[in-house]
């Protein structure tokens, strides 16, 4: 059984894959990820009569995106992986969009914030050819993928990834904060 958690933007997505069944829950939330995320996860298990102790792996989106949003998903994910002593993988929000939209073409994923763009590019065979970066302008000339997640494809993409140490699981902020620039 695999749990997927994404809290990097206004659409919270949590999903549970048990054998061939996939249960997904989403919730629009601007500043209330703390109110919704854990109850959504709880209801995934309860409504489908599944036991959290049977969980084998967690996949969590670790950014870039809302700093507070990703910390909520990551706090839950790394604590669960630690407590249950199970595998955990992080995936970038941009990679998650790119892999969800694998149209056989070179393509870019872009996440905008108030000052610029987080950008990454993937090729026809799903290799990342432009690793994620932050820029005030988006000058990549590739097809732009939708910000839509395909959890099945993400789980498949992470299938052979080595588990990370839950203690070391961290956010992928990409962007520096102001005090770091001043240093």
């Amino acid at each position, binding site marked *: 059984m695999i749990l997927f958690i994404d809290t990097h933007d206004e659409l919270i997505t949590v999903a549970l894959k048990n054998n061939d069944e996939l249960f997904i829950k989403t919730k629009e939330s601007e500043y209330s990820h703390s109110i919704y995320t*854990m109850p959504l996860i*709880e209801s995934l298990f309860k409504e489908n009569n599944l036991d959290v102790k049977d969980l084998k792996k967690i996949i969590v989106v670790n950014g870039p995106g809302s700093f*507070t949003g990703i910390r909520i998903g990551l706090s839950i994910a790394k604590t669960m992986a630690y407590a249950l002593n199970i595998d955990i993988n992080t995936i970038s929000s941009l990679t998650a969009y790119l892999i969800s939209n694998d149209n056989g073409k070179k393509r870019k994923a872009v996440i905008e914030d108030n000052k610029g763009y987080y950008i990454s590019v993937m090729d026809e065979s799903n290799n990342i050819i432009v690793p994620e970066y932050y820029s005030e302008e988006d000058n990549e000339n590739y097809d732009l993928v939708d910000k839509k997640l395909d959890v099945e494809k993400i789980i498949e993409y992470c299938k052979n990834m080595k588990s990370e140490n839950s203690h070391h699981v961290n956010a992928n902020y990409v962007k520096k904060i102001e005090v770091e620039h001043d240093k």
Partner: protein
Amino acid sequence: MKDVYILAVESSCDETSVSIIKNGYEDIATIINSQIDVHTKYGGVVPEVASRLHLENITMVINECLEKANMKLEDMDAFACTYAPGLLGSLLVGVEATKALAFIYNKPFIATNHMMGHIYANMIGNKLEYPLISLIVSGGHTDLILMKSEDSFEYLGSTLDDAIGEAYDKVARILDLPYPGGPNVEKYALEGNPTYKMPQIMNDESFNFSFSGIKSHCNNLVHNEHQRGNEINKNDLACSFQNCVTSHLVDKTKKALLKYNIKTFLLSGGVAANSFIRNALKNMCDEIGVEMHMPEKRYCTDNAAMIGAAAYVLYKHKKFADLSVNAQSHITLND
């Protein structure tokens, strides 16, 4: 009755702390991971930096606490955390991690008020008699509270402007003392004499406090001396300031104890680690026959043991929280 073990998490500011507390008063294990070295670089707590460090450290601190206690998560009867007041991004890390534990082990989740934690720091290894009056002195609070029972909080007075800890930090800045300012002002005061004239602070009938006037007074004093080309004696100014704010605390507290005829007094909060303030309040209590409790210094500054002690009171009253609880930056004890 069966022993109750609570695992408590505190992450409201710049310490990631986890404790295991037995029956609300026995500290089985407490780990405090302080970020003070990092924030010293910036001259104060940077909220985004604090949040990032909490996320990096949270499971390691939980693990270290369990190892120290030689216990497992399965042994816990409840999971508690600070949910307010504090820095939102920081609080959220502890809140979400604790929810995850409560969910996995199907045990009560207890959302605890940080200020309640400061008060109940006095319960660790100690028994309290009610009614009592509690004075909370910290970087964000200066409150006099009447407690008729262990879960009733009646505000008698609060600061009208700066909290006392804030005043200490600002005076530290005026005197060019490094972060953390408060403890450094205390250190300097120890070597000085109260030679500078300080204003009389709000000597009225209320139980409210005010610390912004004295801060401005210190600022003007330093400024004027500089303009005259005179050196400020930092030790003497720190001492004069400390004497003045301490007698303000002592006067108001004494008035409240006498008016309500209360025989038990609790001191708590980060500034309760200040020895000069502890001693002055203790002398006043001895003089009027009041029993005074104050936490050991390590339980005055932010720690999860006090959150576990407060959570035990909520546990006894079955005040459990839902997994939808959100962190909050500002609340009172009665919210």
